[in-house]
């Protein structure tokens, strides 16, 4: 196992790294808050699933990855995309359905991908990323250059059988795979505990791989767990499982209220509790860094303003983009290439 160095680390490098983690978390938060507003006020072409409240997991994990490490994501994938280095302009343009979108408007919110950054992509199929990441891990192993493949998935997805299949394959082949369960306690409109037996981490343990269960709203704890797992990959020691307990603040998707027509699956109190500074991953990190003298209020305000500016720029970029190419779908599917 890697020595847990991060939490004791006082170096300038680590301080800078933390600031850049905070920066990414702010970018995700503001980007998604803005998407929520646009969805509500103006409307977006398709639905969006936001990860507000879960930023620490995405950023903590990706803070330990290189650009050429692989990553698969979920339907709730904006945070993963941005955390792994995806461009916010290209992501917004994608969600707006524009030609300048990262997938040229073909994928939308649920399919943001950027292979140049190792981002294999979000996935509209719950559990759909698991086997793809495992395949990427196989490729990484064959490449033999220490690259890792990270798979984000939800606690709901952990009830899909393919989850177990992939843990099994990754374990027997000793693949450089990191399975990251974002356990937010919810599966769509169902409280996960009502449809989940036992502890998810025990499922992973059964496949003979290191398991760590961490506070998913503590970005440094996540980063530490990720570091350990990534180092195992670098040294060809095989897969790891990380479970991050967290909470999603927004609805399952932005149209939730309309869909549920008054039905509920959680209390407002519960949501409010998770919004508080002692739970909110950004507030917590901000306060830590403030206490440790790494980021004072002024710097935080500047970073916040920067994030907001970046997001406004992204909105402008998206709005100005050309509409998607209407011939592209056929070209990509190979339609009309028949003899």
């Amino acid at each position: 196992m890697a020595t847990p160095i991060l939490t004791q680390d006082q170096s300038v490098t680590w301080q800078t790294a933390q600031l850049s983690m905070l920066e990414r978390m702010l970018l995700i938060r503001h980007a998604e808050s803005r998407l929520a507003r646009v969805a509500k006020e103006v409307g977006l072409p398709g639905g969006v699933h936001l990860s507000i409240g879960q930023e620490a997991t995405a950023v903590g994990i990706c803070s330990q990855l290189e650009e050429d490490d692989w990553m698969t994501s979920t339907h709730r994938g904006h945070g993963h995309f941005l955390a792994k280095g995806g461009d916010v302009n290209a992501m917004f343009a994608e969600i707006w359905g524009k030609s300048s979108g990262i997938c040229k408007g073909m994928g939308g919110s649920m399919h943001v991908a950027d292979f140049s950054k190792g981002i294999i992509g979000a996935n509209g199929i719950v559990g759909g990323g698991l086997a793809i990441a495992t395949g990427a891990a196989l490729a990484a192993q064959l490449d033999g250059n220490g690259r890792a493949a990270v798979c984000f998935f939800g606690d709901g997805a952990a009830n899909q059988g393919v989850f177990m299949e992939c843990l099994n394959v990754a374990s027997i082949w000793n693949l450089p795979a990191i399975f990251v369960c974002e356990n937010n306690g919810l599966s769509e409109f169902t409280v996960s505990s009502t449809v989940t037996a036992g502890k998810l981490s025990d499922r992973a343990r059964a496949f003979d791989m290191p398991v760590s269960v961490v506070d998913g709203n503590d970005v440094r704890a996540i980063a530490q767990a990720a570091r350990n797992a990534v180092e195992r990959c670098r040294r060809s020691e095989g897969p790891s499982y990380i479970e991050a307990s967290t909470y999603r603040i927004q609805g399952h998707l932005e149209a939730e209220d309309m869909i549920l027509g008054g039905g509920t699956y959680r209390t407002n109190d519960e949501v409010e509790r998770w919004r508080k500074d002692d739970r909110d991953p950004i507030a917590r990190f901000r306060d830590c860094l403030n206490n440790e003298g790494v980021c004072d209020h002024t710097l935080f305000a500047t970073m916040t303003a920067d994030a907001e500016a970046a997001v406004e720029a992204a909105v402008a970029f998206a709005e100005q983009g050309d509409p998607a190419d209407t011939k592209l779908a056929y070209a990509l599917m190979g339609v009309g290439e028949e003899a």
Partner: protein
Amino acid sequence: MSRKRYTQAINEALHEEMERDPKTILFGEDVALAVFGDTRGLLDKFGPKRVRNTPICEATIAGMAVGAAAAGYRVIAHLLFSNFIYTGFDAIANQMAKLRLMTGGQIDLPITVLAVYGGGASQAAQHSDANHPVLMNLGGIDVLVPATPADAKGMLKTAIRSNRPSFFLEASGLGAVGGEVPDGEHLVPLGKASVARDGMDVTLISVGSMIRATQNAAKKLAEAGVDAEIIDVRSLVPLDERTIIKSVMKTGRTVIIDEARDMCSAASHIAAVIADKGFAGLRAPVRRVTVNNSSMPYAPNAEAAIFPNADDIVRAATSICQPETAA
């Protein structure tokens, strides 16, 4: 008659049939809060034994439907979006479609699977497949694609009572559309197409979700002096070949409109049936208006560009209607 939305009609059918037979049970992901509204109120009315939220595991949902039905229950399983049929496909194709045959007929399988299908709403490729052809090819499974609230209600009730497994596919674009639904007990037999418009010049055969585009096309054609007949093929398995052929014999010209990808689509199959059994009446090529073998792109303009619409239908119809016929 009362005016109801398509989804509401489905919801009523579910309530009535669960009321009728206490051995009817329903399960699926988030059926309690009803993602599409179709299962709303069932949990409250029939309780957590008969109405269950499952974990996310379509393979097991579909397989359990087979097991519970084989063991004597009348099962309604909800798979949410029709793209998630694929996750549960082994239990559907290898078990549900085959178990009656393999056991020499020892059992019936009274299963109704619900799923919402189709594009047009920028849901992107993984939430917009119109995959009824894949189900049609399995054999042993009824495939229903009602286009009106009345048919949605009447066909669902019939399907639930039937002892054959069936897929009841809800057109995503029709959920909020209203229509008159007969009051009281309303059953629509499976395997009967309905003639939605009488006409002499060309037969427009609409599959499920395509009804509105087809009706709009018929209006436009009428303005151009072409009198179109519309057949609403609300049941794909069993398929009402007779009604189709009868109309072809009358008009001699057909356009089949289907939201499925073209290859091996319902449109392909209906065209094949016409080219075989309706050949004697054919006076022009049999045209298909379908999706040209692509999944749906996300961007609304890109999706609209490949999604079958009224103009596509008019163009196809016009291409086979000679001037004298159109006069």
